């Protein structure tokens, strides 16, 4: 049942992804030392987003799983986004 239509990821890929994650960590720590003003938060979150994309796609192998999982991920991500946007409608315009 399992393993038939399953895409096995080899060790090398995992290690590459790990190296990439470490590299991004170095970048984000370095960049945090430079004053980018209002873009500091933006860059930090962007790098975090890239890192989480790597983890979700490869480590959590959602890329190779059933497509419906990606739809589910989209639903929960979108919900979170909506909650943030609507809540900030209050706090930004107060």
């Amino acid at each position, binding site marked *: 049942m399992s393993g038939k239509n399953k895409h096995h990821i080899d060790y090398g890929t995992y290690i590459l992804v790990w190296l990439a994650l470490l590299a991004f960590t170095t970048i984000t720590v370095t960049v945090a030392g430079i004053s980018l003003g209002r873009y500091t938060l933006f860059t930090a979150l962007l790098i975090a987003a890239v890192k989480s994309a790597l983890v979700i796609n490869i480590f959590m192998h959602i890329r190779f799983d059933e497509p419906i999982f990606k739809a589910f991920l989209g*639903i929960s991500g979108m919900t979170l986004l909506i*909650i943030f946007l609507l809540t900030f409608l*209050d*706090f930004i315009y107060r």
Partner: protein
Amino acid sequence: MADTVAGLPVQHAEKSFYQQSTNKYSGILSWLLTTDHKRIGIMYLAAIGFFFFVGAVIGLLMRLELIAPGRQIMDAQTYNSFFTLHGVIMIFLFIIPGLPAIFGNFFLPIQIGARDVAFPRLNLLSWYIYMIGAALVLVSLFLPGGPIDTGWTFYIPYSVRSTTNVSMAIFAAFVLGFSSILTGINFVTTTHRLRAPGMSFFKMPLFVWATYATAWIQIIATPVIGITILLVIIERLFGVGIFDPALGGDPILFQHMFWIYSHPAVYIMILPAMGVVSEIIPTFARRTIFGYKAIAMSSLAIAFVGYLVWAHHMFTSGMSDTARWIFSLLTFIVALPSGVKIFNWVATMYKGSIDPQPPFLWVMNFIFLFSIGGLTGLVLGSLATNIHLHDTYFVVAHFHYVMFGGTGTIFFAAMHYWFPKMFGKMYNIKLARIAVLLFFVGFNLLYFPKFIMGYMGMPRRYYDYLPQFEALQEISTVGSWIVVGTLFFILGYLIHALLKGKKATSNPWGGVTLEWHIASPPSMENFAEIPTVTREPYDFSQLKEMKNE
């Protein structure tokens, strides 16, 4: 489908699920350790039904206190605890789990042609978690400190400062949320993974669609109340400041967090009810449902739009004007998918051959009461009128029309519709018809005066009132006697039916969804052989063949 289901009547000779066990035990342990979705559904029915009556009796006592101005039977602090408990019990222990956990558990797998839910043991665990949550609520009443008095909304800062047992009571709500989440996960996975061959998404009965949409809300919304409750408990224990205005915490942020869950929770309550309506109307109109896809999609639409409107509970809280008008606008959008459903139901009945059996009468009751509830919701959703009516009896009347008149009524409809299938016994139809009428009269006597009192300015949650409200308060109290009397009347004839009722046939109403193809009560496996589905869900041309089976 007729071919493959034709073999099923053989099951009449088989044992029902009451006579079989999923484990090595018999007697009480065969229930307490069961993994069968039908038995778990019945266990939920027993527990939830019990708490419903507890909640109703608390409501009755509150109404009795309000029969005249001044102190009648309890002091003000007891009254505060009573309205809190009435809210907590009715919302977290009855109406949120009610339809999905009882009827969803029992009928969702059967209606999609499955033998059980995807995670049977998790299902049993959900029941135990529910019972633990319920026990925590009860224990919190008797510990020193006294019963919680914050109202079911637990607003800060009072919930942080109240000396009553707030932490334990809201922790109970946290635990109950866990149960709700696990049920949701189970139902979504079941719907995706266990549909019978041929049962495509657009061949699923509408109750399944509604329960599926509900399950998504349970999964996505409940964690937010979970963290909110945890933060309140942490605030009470450690004083971290997140929800303490003295340390910089923002009370309006709490209200956002609370309603981000609790508004979608309103749809957890009402969506399965709408699903039941979509089952009952075609069966008793002998017509296929009008606008099947529109109803199915409107369930998802309601689940989605339900996320966008939470702050309409907070129009007078002091949030920004921009947020207020945007949330007011979004609120009106919810009326659209709800309207789609109401019009499609009415269109289904048009030119149908209507058979006014008790379940159908309950649905008529629902459409009337829910329409009043829904339309007064629009009054509350517009900013200008909301300022006047906020925190008055008008709000109390509105949500009782929606929750009790809507979901509560459908709870009885579902009970009357599926009772013969669940227990294999038929109740007294004539008594059941009288019950609908009594309920209708009592309900309107109980809650309609509250619209008027709210409009006149009577605030909610008050222990005492001005003499000018006395007449209306009395009418309302008399209504509460009729409603609670009717509840016991219904309980009486259903128990009588259970013990001495006539045996029910496998299809007493002439329904065509899968549960009517199998024995009443079903066997442990539901289906001797998993059916292959070829027909539309409400294709009544198969009724004749079913009778010949």
